[in-house]
């Protein structure tokens, strides 16, 4: 990132190739609309380029990048463009939503593909805060502290949300395991 902030376009390409997939899927899973995800994705990278001169080494570049993505996503939700607007501060103690698991038909031709589809669906049905923590953990490879920094919450809240999210996914996938 330092090379990139110094004007090295090749450094930007390296960063882009490394993080493009994770950021895009993070946005896609959150807003659930490919067109919107692409728009947000482009905005994030454009903002990254424009803000390169202000970049200071305070954290991992991945944390910085996903902070940009998170802020852009929250801005999108605040403008009422999101599919749902859920406070990230609410405690998610409600039990996992397993209603969709009853509709799964094991007669699908390819069980693995069905499993993948089901898993993606389960992620989509997670509460926003849990989904966000899960996606930052899986797509961004961030640790608890880094997720807390990105989302502006404390480490324990992140840990709790991640635990709930994993529990719900495991519960939802128990028919396939």
């Amino acid at each position: 990132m330092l090379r990139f902030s110094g004007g090295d376009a090749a450094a930007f390409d390296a960063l882009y190739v490394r993080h493009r997939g994770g950021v895009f899927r993070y946005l896609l899973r959150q807003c659930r609309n490919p067109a919107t995800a692409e728009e947000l994705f482009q905005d994030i990278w454009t903002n990254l380029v424009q803000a390169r001169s202000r970049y200071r080494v305070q954290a991992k570049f991945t944390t910085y990048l996903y902070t940009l993505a998170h802020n852009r996503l929250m801005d999108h939700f605040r403008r009422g463009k999101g599919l749902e607007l859920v406070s990230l501060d609410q405690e998610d103690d409600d039990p996992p939503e397993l209603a969709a698991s009853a509709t799964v038909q094991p007669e699908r031709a390819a069980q693995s593909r069905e499993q993948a589809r089901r898993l993606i669906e389960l992620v989509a049905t997670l509460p926003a805060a849990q989904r966000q923590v899960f996606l930052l953990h899986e797509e961004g490879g961030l640790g608890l502290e880094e997720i807390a920094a990105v989302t502006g919450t404390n480490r324990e809240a992140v840990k709790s949300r991640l635990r709930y999210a994993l529990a719900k996914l495991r519960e939802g996938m128990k028919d396939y395991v």
Partner: protein
Amino acid sequence: MSADTPQDSDLEQLLTDTAELRRQYRAASQEEPPIQLDETIRAAARRQMGARPGGSRWGVSWHVPASIAAVVVVSVTLAVMVGRREAQPPVAREQRAAAPAPRSEVARDQADAGSASGVLKEKSGPTAAEPAAQPLPHSGGAPASLEAPPASAVQKVGRPVASEGKEGKSSVGPAGAELGAEAAHVAAPAAPPAAAAPAAATEANSTQGQSQEGAAKAKAEERVSAQPLARKRAQARPAETDSIASPWEKDPQAWLAHIEELRATGRNEDAAVSFRGFRNRYPDYQLPAGFVAPGP
């Protein structure tokens, strides 16, 4: 991916238990941004960064120092040129302005060799670089009849000079004799101040009240112009180099008048010394008919 501290053992256990689940998720989550979007973002990034991958800093950084260096060089050059110009005495500056260009030297030699009419024809259509050589029809070597050319001939010569700014006033001069004198002034650039400062001379000639004085100078200059060119050049050199001489020493007529004055007041020795200085300065000057050289 793993929990950060030992207190997260329950989370660690959960992550271990869900490792297969998370592997399945990563296998299922393979969406990528469209290639067109990739290209758009990369192009925008290159545009934002000035499309200078790699050594972009050098591309930007050399402009400012180069510009500063260019400004400094031009400024210093101008300052030195102006300083030198200011350091020169005004007479020397005017003489330099009136000094003929090297090309005009050649033209002058041609004028020496050629006939007056030929010279006038040649000078009636000068090139842009020749104005300094305009007065040359009056230079030495020409027959005496040509030393006071008719007004029409002088005006022919004067017109190109008129395009040279101050000298332009000469084209509307009052009489042919005055014009001839004025031309003689310009023709002898290193001659005494009145002749070496064509601008001042032409300004003086522009008024009728001063025309008589111009005519008198013209007569004096006619005598000067009657001498060979080499003599006039020899006369010009000391005046160019000696810019701090006494006022009368710059004008042979005035110098001779000064000598006469010394002799009239009984200072014969001073007059003789002054006359020797006069001869040193103007060895070939033709003395007026009534002038008797003082001598020991």
